[in-house]
């Protein structure tokens, strides 16, 4: 009866220990989840930056286009130029505008690309580092928890085994074990 009560108490203690460990693991999980959300935020910032750059590029192109059209109107309306000159100037202006637009477009694209890559690298390196840290932290925590659980369980099993066996062996068997021990000691030349 005492043994049974002892075993129940030990099982109860093991259960309590298990619940405690569950809450520990849950807090670790929530902390990891918070870190993951932060990473998601970083990704959002990167996409936002790309969009802003894209918008800037489009606006730039629009401004150049409008400027070109206005220049065309001004030149057409000018009275100091004859038609040939007007046509020549417009053609030259068109070419120059096209070249400038292409250059600006190229530069903007390059800038966007550089910015995009830099942001990407920053996010990736941060993400990779955080991933490594999280993995290491997870491993450490799980190893520590595993060790604690293993130690605790081994200790409890040991106690139960000793308690149950100690009370369970009949005197006659105990006597036999003692005589066998003496015989073993004799074989080992202790006696």
């Amino acid at each position, binding site marked *: 009866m005492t043994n049974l009560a002892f075993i129940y108490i030990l099982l109860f203690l093991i259960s309590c220990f298990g619940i405690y460990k569950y809450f520990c693991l849950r807090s670790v999980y929530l902390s990891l989840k918070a870190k993951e959300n932060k990473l998601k935020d970083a990704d959002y910032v990167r996409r936002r930056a790309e969009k802003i750059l894209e918008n800037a590029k489009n606006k730039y192109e629009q401004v150049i286009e409008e400027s070109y059209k206005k220049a065309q109107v001004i030149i057409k309306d000018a009275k100091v130029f004859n038609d040939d000159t007007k046509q020549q100037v417009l053609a030259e202006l068109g070419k120059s505008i096209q070249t400038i637009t292409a250059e600006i477009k190229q530069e903007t694209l390059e800038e966007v690309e550089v910015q995009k890559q830099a942001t990407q690298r920053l996010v990736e390196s941060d993400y990779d580092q955080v991933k490594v840290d999280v993995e290491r932290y997870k491993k450490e925590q799980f190893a520590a928890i595993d060790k604690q659980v293993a130690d605790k369980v081994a200790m409890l099993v040991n106690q139960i085994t000793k308690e149950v066996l100690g009370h369970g062996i009949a005197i006659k068997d105990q006597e036999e074990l003692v005589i066998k021990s*003496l015989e073993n000691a004799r074989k080992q030349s*202790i006696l």
Partner: protein
Amino acid sequence: MQENNPFSNIVSQIQSRDDQNLLLDELSALKNSLFQIKQNTFDQVLTTKVRQKISAELEKILTASSDRAGLLDQLTKQVQDLKTLDLTLSFEPTVETRQKIFTWVKTNMGEGVVINLKFDPTIIGGAQIAFNGKYVDLSLKKIIDTIKR
């Protein structure tokens, strides 16, 4: 051994460390009584302070001798020189168990060994044995711990 040793019948009655200490106390009381001025003190001590079995054996040996003190010294030395077998058990042995252990020791190790029994329930079963400066742990606790490792 019994033929050469006049005290063999007394020494063979010692089973445990307690027996050994009790006999040494009795011998000491007898030795002291030899130097008392009062007459018959030795006989009085022999009958009142020494166990009957021992006093009967001692009477046979000492009455025939003029050197009682010398004989008592010899016997005291023999008792002191007995080898001790330290035996730790997981349970408090009954008289029957003690007898079984003593019989085993006498049969396998001969005369002149005193058993010093100790009790430690944490060893679960078996015994921890120490003799002549050597020690071996043959308890169940040790076996369980070894299996676990």
